[in-house]
C-alpha cells in the first residue's frame, strides 16, 4: 500500500480524542471512505498502518478524528509526529436516497458523518443528525463534539434504560426517513440494523481489523448474504460501509 508523507496542518486533542488536519493534494475522499495512516516511514514497529475514516475535507485539507487506544494511534497523536497516509479508499455511503435522511452516530465513530453531512448538504438532501453522548464522556465532550457537528441533536444516554437504543429511539417514526446512515458503537449499529429492518434502508459503517486495505489479504472479513448464502466480504474494498440488510449477523 502506497503511503504519502503529508504536512500536518493542525493537531488538536480532547481527552483521548485527537483531531488531525493535513494538506492533501490527492484524491478527494467520499463520505465513509477511510485512509491507512502511520507516524513513521523509518520504523516498521508498530508494523501495520491504522485505518481511519476520512472525517472532513475542505480546500485541500483532510482531517481524521480518532481515539488514542494502542501504540499506533498514540504515535499518530504525538505532537510533532510525522504523518503518512494512503489515498482514501473503500466503498463509502451511498448518498442516493431521494429524501430526508437520518445520520446517527456515537463515540469517536461519529467521524465519517461530518463529511457525509456536508456531501448531503451539497446535494441538497436534508438530514437530521443525532449523536450519542455516552455517560462516560468526559466533561466538556458535548461542547467539543458539537463544534464539528453544529446542527446535530446531542443525545445523552445517561439514565436511559438501554443506552444502545437511546439514539435510535430519539429518531421517532423511522418512516419519515428515506435512509439511515449509522456510525457508532457496535451495539448501536446492531440496534440500527434491527430497528430499520423492513422499514427504511440503513447503511452501517464497520471497522474490521485490516492489514492490506486493498483487498489482498482477506483479513477484514465481514459476514454477509451473497445470493442467499452466508459469505465473507472484505470490508476494505466492499465496505467499510454496508447496507444493513446485507450484513449476516
Amino acid at each position, binding site marked *: 500500500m502506497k503511503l504519502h508523507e503529508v504536512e500536518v496542518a493542525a493537531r488538536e486533542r480532547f481527552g483521548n480524542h485527537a483531531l488531525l488536519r493535513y494538506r492533501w493534494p490527492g484524491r478527494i475522499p467520499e463520505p465513509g471512505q477511510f485512509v491507512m495512516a502511520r507516524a513513521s516511514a523509518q520504523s516498521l*514497529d508498530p*508494523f501495520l498502518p491504522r485505518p481511519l475514516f476520512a472525517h472532513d475535507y475542505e480546500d485541500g485539507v483532510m482531517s481524521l478524528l480518532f481515539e488514542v487506544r494502542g501504540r499506533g494511534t498514540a504515535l499518530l497523536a504525538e505532537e510533532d509526529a510525522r504523518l503518512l497516509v494512503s489515498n482514501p479508499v473503500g466503498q463509502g455511503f451511498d448518498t442516493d436516497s431521494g429524501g430526508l435522511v437520518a445520520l446517527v452516530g456515537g463515540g469517536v465513530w461519529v467521524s465519517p458523518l461530518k463529511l457525509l453531512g456536508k456531501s448531503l448538504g451539497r446535494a441538497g438532501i436534508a438530514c437530521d443528525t443525532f449523536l450519542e453522548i455516552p455517560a462516560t464522556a468526559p466533561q466538556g465532550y458535548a461542547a467539543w463534539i458539537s463544534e464539528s457537528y453544529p446542527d446535530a441533536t446531542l443525545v445523552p444516554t445517561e439514565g436511559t434504560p438501554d443506552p444502545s437504543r437511546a439514539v435510535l429511539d430519539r429518531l421517532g417514526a423511522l418512516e419519515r426517513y428515506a435512509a439511515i446512515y449509522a456510525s457508532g458503537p457496535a451495539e448501536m449499529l446492531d440496534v440500527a440494523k434491527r430497528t430499520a429492518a423492513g422499514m427504511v434502508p440503513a447503511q452501517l459503517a464497520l471497522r474490521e481489523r485490516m*492489514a492490506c486495505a486493498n*483487498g489482498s*489479504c482477506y483479513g477484514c*472479513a465481514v459476514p454477509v448474504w451473497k445470493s442467499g448464502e452466508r459469505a465473507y466480504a472484505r470490508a476494505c474494498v466492499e465496505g467499510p460501509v454496508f447496507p444493513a440488510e446485507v450484513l449476516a449477523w
Partner: protein
Amino acid sequence: MVARPEKTAGVAPDLAVKLCGLSLATPLMPAAGTLAKEALDGAKEVYGAMVPKTVTPGPRAGNPPPRVAEVPSGMVNSIGLQNPGLERFLKDLHVWDVGLPLFVSVAADTVAEFAAMCERLASDTKVTAVELNLSCPNVEHGGLQFCAGPGTVSDVVAACREALPEKPLFAKLTNEGVVANAVAAEGAGADALTLINTIPALVVDARERKVFMRGGLSGPAIKPVALRMVYEVSRVVETPVVGVGGVSSGEDVAEFMLAGATAVQVGAGSFVREPREMLDEFVAYLRENGLRARELTGSI
C-alpha cells in the same frame, strides 16, 4: 574512474533471472495470498511473475474474524484459504493476466485432489506453473500438514508431477523439518522450492483473557528464519529456491538471493510498503555493487 566492462554500474542493472527455464523480468513476485486482483495496478512493472491466492478444488468460505493481528515486526493471519474454488477461479483467470507468467498456488485435502487440480491446470494455457501449498492439512493423515514430513511431501509432489508433466512444479514448504522435506520434494520431481510459508503462532489477548488468534506468523520478524531455511536448503538441493518471508526492502531481496534464492516473493511487507519502492532499492543496490540480479544467487 577505471572502466568496469563486465559490470553494470552506470547503466540500468540487469534484473532478469531464469527460473525453471522461464525468463522473469525481475526476481520479485507476490507471495501467494497477499495480492488480490483488485490491487494489480502497476504489477507488470514490478514483478517477474504473478501468483494469485491459493485455490482449492471447491470454494472455501474461510475462517470467521478476527483474521489478522499485529505482532512485533509482523502479523499473524488466520484467513482459512477463502477462495472461490478452482472452476470459478479458472473462469475468471483473465483478471490475473497482466502479461506476466502466471504461477497458480493450489491446496487440497488429499493427494488425489492435489493431483486432480494439477491435471486440470495442465491443460489451461494461461497457467505457466503450479505452486503446491503444502502447509494445508492432509485429511487422510489426521489433519497433519502435507509438509509435516518427507513421506507425505514426497507422495503429493510425485502425484502432482505425474499429473503435470510439462509445466514447472513448485513445492512450498514451511520452516519445520524443511531440509528433509525439500530433499523429498526434489526427489519426487519438484522443479523448484518455495520457502517459507508462515510459522505457526498464537496471539493472546491478555485484557480479555482469551486466545485472540491461532495462525501463521509473517513479516520482518521471520526474515532471519526464512533466510536460514533458504540458505540451508539451497546448499543441499539442485533445484532453484524461491525465497519468501519478511521481505520489506530492496536490501532484503538481495539478502534472500545472496542466501541462495533465485527469485523472491513479497507478502506482508507489501501491506506496509510499496513493492515498487523495494524494487527501486534493489536496483540501487545492484547499481552500487555493479552486479546483475542473477549473479547474487547463492554467492555468499
